């Protein structure tokens, strides 16, 4: 099964005629991802890497009603509309590659997605991969191998290095999810951990967070309830502290947001803490009593 995307997933690409989207459409197709259509308003009827382009998501889904996943590659100022269009048309998983989406736009999109039961990943995510089955986004295929470890990370490159590290140690990934680098995300750690906990093809989960934000701390209570082991890798201990959001930020978020606060919250709730990338596969194996 994996989570979010698998062998049978049919996907579409919004903003497919952009240079980056076109390149990664090619790479996704090469990987075996089933891209049934692309969308760029006013470019309907064209083809990109053989994929038919439509003016709207609705027109695309009319021709390809089995498509359930869309990736969003449009410029930031159009991202809100593009995501809403996907949700409105009936897409179930929206993977938002676009970065630096205005915060209030993303809050609005989150509300609408929730109302319709749609999963939004990102913005500023490198995408999602279920190795050997499906790749949605721009993750480099070389970093991933099929296996039974789920991974979820805020940073794109960290996602790749973790998989790389697992693979060099003989492990592989069920699914790797890029949570995204924007300040307000469609899904947070807890959302993805819940999917992995339910996934019969995942045995353990690696989550990688970093200084800033509150998503790591918010996931901690759920980790306590999980049956599967969670290995956490938190970066930013050596980084300078970020700026604070006035008194209001302190009132709402208390002491969250530092590498230490995150590590402590996760450790106290049963996560295994990896100090380095190479320690990650060691802890996974230990938790799963492998080798």
């Amino acid at each position, binding site marked *: 099964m994996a989570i979010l995307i698998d062998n049978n997933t049919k996907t579409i690409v919004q903003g497919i005629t952009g240079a*980056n989207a076109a390149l*990664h459409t090619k*790479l996704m197709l090469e990987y075996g991802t089933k891209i049934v259509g692309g969308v760029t308003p006013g470019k309907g009827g064209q083809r990109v890497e053989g994929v038919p382009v439509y003016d709207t998501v609705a027109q695309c889904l009319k021709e390809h009603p089995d498509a359930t996943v869309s990736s969003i590659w449009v410029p*930031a*100022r159009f991202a809100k509309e593009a995501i809403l269009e996907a949700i409105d048309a009936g897409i179930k998983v929206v993977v938002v*590659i676009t*970065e*630096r*989406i*205005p*915060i*209030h*736009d993303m*809050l*609005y999109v*989150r*509300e609408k997605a929730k109302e319709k039961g749609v999963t939004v990943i990102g913005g500023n995510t*490198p995408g999602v991969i279920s190795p050997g089955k499906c790749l949605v986004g*721009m*993750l*480099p295929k*070389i*970093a991933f191998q099929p296996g039974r470890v789920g991974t979820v*990370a*805020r*940073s*794109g*490159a*960290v996602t*790749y*290095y973790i998989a*790389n*590290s697992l693979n*060099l140690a003989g492990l592989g990934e069920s699914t790797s999810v890029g949570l995204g*680098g924007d*300040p*307000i995300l469609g899904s947070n750690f807890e959302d993805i951990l819940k999917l992995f906990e339910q996934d019969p093809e995942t045995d353990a989960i690696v989550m990688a967070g*970093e*200084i800033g*934000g*509150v998503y790591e701390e918010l996931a901690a209570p759920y980790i306590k309830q999980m049956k599967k082991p969670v290995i956490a890798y938190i*970066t*930013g*201990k*050596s*980084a*300078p502290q970020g*700026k604070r*959001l*006035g*008194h*209001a*930020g*302190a*009132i*709402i*978020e208390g002491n969250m947001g530092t590498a230490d606060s995150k590590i402590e919250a996760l450790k106290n709730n049963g996560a295994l803490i990896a100090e*380095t*990338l*190479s320690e990650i596969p060691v802890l996974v194996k230990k938790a799963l009593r492998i080798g």
Partner: protein
Amino acid sequence: MRLYEFEGKMLFKRKKIPVPEGVVIDKDTISELDKVFYPVVIKAQVFAGGRGKAGIIQFAQNRLEAEKKIIELLGKKHGPFVIEKVLVERKLDIEQELYIAALIDRIAHKPLLMLCLQGGVDIEEIAKANPGAIRKYYFNAGEKLFEFQAKRIAGELGFSSDLFSGVANVIFNLYNLFIDYECKLAEINPLVITKDRKVFALDAKVDLDEDAMFRHPDLREMGIVARNEIGELTEREKIAKAAGIPYADVDPEGDIGVFPGGAGFGIAALDLITHYGGRPSNFMDSGGAPTQEKLKAMLGLLMDNPKVKVIFGARFGGISRCDDWAKAVVQYILENKPQKPMIMRMAGNMEEEGRKIFEEAKKEHPELFKNIKIYAYDTPIEEVIKEAIRVAKETT
């Protein structure tokens, strides 16, 4: 993007939130003091908090005293910030201090309006000691407040009728300013009630979403533009900023120049180098898909740092392609013929194409590439880091 108090108050005035009469003064505009009614309060315009305790909020009874104090303040340092402007406002007779803020609650993922009948410098202590004293109202994203909602909230705070409309007005306008300008935060602490029963925003803390500013060209027209929110920069940081590179010196004695991909691994690399006993010199972020020019400028920053003995580089090509990266690095080397060793790793999208670029350049200019190593997918990144540390220690 944080605004200075006087900028926040410009927005407040636009949105009909009452602020004390005042003028902004820098070293060239001291004559503006003629326009003020005394006594006044003189407030240094810097981002750091704790201005009162630091003595950079002052009072003056007359123009002479004000001028003297302002001249003392201007140019003075507060934390990493140099005081370049002061805001001079008529001093108010204050009866009560309140707290009000509209912000994005990143935990609830909702816009939030917070109010407290006690405001002032101790608001965080109050919130800790008595969370019930903070009233919270959540709203739907993007929706503006109706007047009746602002009134209902003002009514719930229990103001007497002479203050009711003034407080309701501030609630209404502050929240709608927050929505209209797509703020991360719009905070008034304190909102004051004067002895003559009027309501004023005594301070203004507005934090804008940089990524939404394209929708608000009027900010630029008001002179509200990108600013240095960190305080004084090092010379190298100034050069980086001018080139549009997110860069920070992290260790003045650091001998490993870090040339990573995005910010995420940039942070991880600092931890890993430190973990294995090395001293990273800097944080750096190449951003989404950097141009050749930017990549070259990034390398230049590190090469020009005399403390840096070795460059640690890493590219895991996702949206940023390995071939683009290779091209830039090779060009930099050909143009600048650097002497410092570079220990790097390259993997991911367009890796093969990238490797070819390096190989060809090396074939043509073997002497330029003799200190340059480019590892691949099968060498763990930490081995590359360890080698960089080793090389740094070996280099004198």
